[in-house]
């Protein structure tokens, strides 16, 4: 009955290993540069710095939304409501401004609605253990329904604060950025910091790695889970404000399908949908990839509607397969 087990442990330093964790992000970056290079070599105007700036200007709100989505996906969840929440925020802002509320108050209200909805969805997901897909799908219907309920046609924004925020150009030499881009950069920075340096951020990764373990390790699983949906709601709300800057209006049908773009950006950026692995920087790259694909197609200017779709699909395919082949040689650790 005795157990004499074995002594000593061999030196394990000889084992071959790769810095796998950051690799997908690096590969994305490299492929993005290649794509940009192709654009520059094909179209002269592509080399303007302003083209790069435009990618940021035109995708800022998507980026902010995708950053929020990154939090959710890192926990292994998903948030389908983002597109509708973006539209709802823009719609509510436009409607309130039209009714003559002061811009500061409008901003406050608009920035509260998204997180509140996110919070409620998070609570439902956590306490009633309903799958995030369904809860956020209901949230998506709800927010979109609210948009058309507020107004079935678009509402222009004429408020002075909004217009100046929208049309202010921050000159950098010949080129310019918008206020929206600065806000976007700030959101990205805060998000990256949160994920890397706060307990909340690290708990997000832990839950994505293995929720049961996280629970048994005594981490605040429920609180964190609710927090990520709230954060996603907040990001969507900020995205909605940015979009209302961008379009100076609220339209009930805007940002339809944005959730798919956001999810695509997050995943292209190397984040695992099962959760637990990924970076905000990857998401930034993912959004840029989508933006550059769109820009390439516009610059080309010969594709008709269906070819546009097919080419977008084809470029996505090429990018993802290349990333896959270069990035993960071995099946990356699955944490189902």
């Amino acid at each position, binding site marked *: 009955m005795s157990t004499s087990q074995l002594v000593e442990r061999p030196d394990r330093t000889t084992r071959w290993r790769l810095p796998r964790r950051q690799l997908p992000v690096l590969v994305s970056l490299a492929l993005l540069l290649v794509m940009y290079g192709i654009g520059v070599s094909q179209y002269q105007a592509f080399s303007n710095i302003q083209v790069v700036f435009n990618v940021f200007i035109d995708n800022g709100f998507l980026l902010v939304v995708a950053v929020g989505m990154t939090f959710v996906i890192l926990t292994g969840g998903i948030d389908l409501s983002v597109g509708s929440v973006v539209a709802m925020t823009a719609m509510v802002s436009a409607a309130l401004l039209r009714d003559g509320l002061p811009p500061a108050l409008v901003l406050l209200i608009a920035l509260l609605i998204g997180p509140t909805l996110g919070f409620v969805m998070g609570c439902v997901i956590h306490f009633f253990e309903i799958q995030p897909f369904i809860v956020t799908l*209901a949230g998506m219907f709800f927010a979109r329904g609210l948009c058309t309920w507020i107004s079935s046609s678009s509402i222009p924004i004429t408020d002075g604060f909004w217009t100046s925020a929208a049309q202010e150009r921050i000159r950098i030499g010949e080129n310019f950025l918008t206020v929206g881009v600065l806000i976007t950069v700030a959101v990205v920075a805060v998000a990256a910091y949160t994920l890397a340096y706060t307990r909340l951020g690290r708990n997000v990764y832990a839950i994505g790695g293995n929720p049961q373990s996280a629970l048994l390790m005594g981490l605040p699983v429920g609180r964190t889970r609710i927090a990520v949906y709230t954060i996603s709601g907040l990001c969507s709300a900020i995205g909605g404000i940015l979009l209302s800057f961008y379009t100076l209006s609220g339209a009930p049908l805007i940002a339809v399908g944005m959730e798919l773009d956001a999810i695509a950006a997050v995943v292209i950026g190397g984040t695992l949908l099962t959760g637990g692995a990924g970076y905000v920087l990857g998401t930034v790259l993912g959004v840029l990839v989508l933006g550059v694909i769109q820009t390439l197609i516009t610059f080309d200017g010969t594709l008709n509607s269906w070819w546009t779709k097919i080419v977008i699909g084809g470029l996505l395919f090429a990018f993802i397969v290349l990333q896959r082949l270069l990035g993960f040689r071995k099946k990356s650790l699955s944490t189902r």
Partner: protein
Amino acid sequence: MSGWRTRLPAVTGHRLFWPVVVLVLLVAANAIYRPSFLTVEIKNGHLYGSLVDIVRLSAPLILVALGMTLVIATGGIDLSVGSVVAVSGAVACLHISRQPDQNSLGGVLVALAMAFGVSLLLGLWNGTLVAVIGIQPIIATLILMVAGRGLAQLITSGQIITINSDPYRMIGVGHVLTLPFAIVLALAVTLLVAVLTRRTALGMIVEAVGGNAEASRLAGIRARRITLLAYVVSAACAAVAGFMMTANVSSADGNAAGLWVELDAILAVVIGGTSLAGGRFYLGGTIVGALLIQTLTTSVYAMNIDPQTALLFKAMVVIAVCLVQAPAFRAKFRRRRATTGGPTAPTGEQRKEQVAA
């Protein structure tokens, strides 16, 4: 009496109890709004009535959702079904529209075969990306979701192809033995899938792969092949749904056919009790889910709910279904009831234990 006591919790505790209750409530609400909602009559030798419409219109959704159930059971998801619907309808209608005699059965069959073949290829494509190359399903199928619709429009040149073919129309609006053919077809496919999965070992094998792919591989299951197969089946189901949808209006609209059907299908699957994480799947549940969703849509029309608020209505019902169906929600409800008397049932904790398992 005692039989009642023991059977009642078994019924209310059943996975499908609450979705069915909500379904019945929806129908009841419609009936109150307009009593003739429940009327089913024979008109021109066909069954005719709102209820028949609901079942007929949910036939394509049932098909798509069946395929989706298998994909989800393997732990995946298929966003491209809507595009496959559009492509299959487009190919079939294009071929028929080029026939000198659109009513020739042979021509229609060739068209169906061609469209079915193309769809299988699309399914194979999805399956390859997921199972062989190892791309995450949502992204792998997103590619085809975007490109496939482009493909459908390419096939139709962006136009709506109108056809005038009685055999083809049959698929969408025809009748056999007073029953709409679409219902019969959906029923047949359902039976086929049910037999294929439950009378053979396929169902269990799919569940094993979805539950733990690596363990299944080590148990000698060709997990990749099964995953691939699921996507092919999903595309095949979507193809038939595509025939139905285009035959319903005798025209192929590359842009609108099957738009957002993937969301409805996923919703149906989840309402039916299949987890998006993969593993156990429930075909019966999926069908109830699909019926529920179609009833919801039809209710909006039938009760003439203002289109501006229709989405809010839909959101409310979806939330209600999910809440009432969630074991955790019911457990909370039950506990409260239990404290005010009545025996404590030691259930409801199931979910929590799964978390800890």
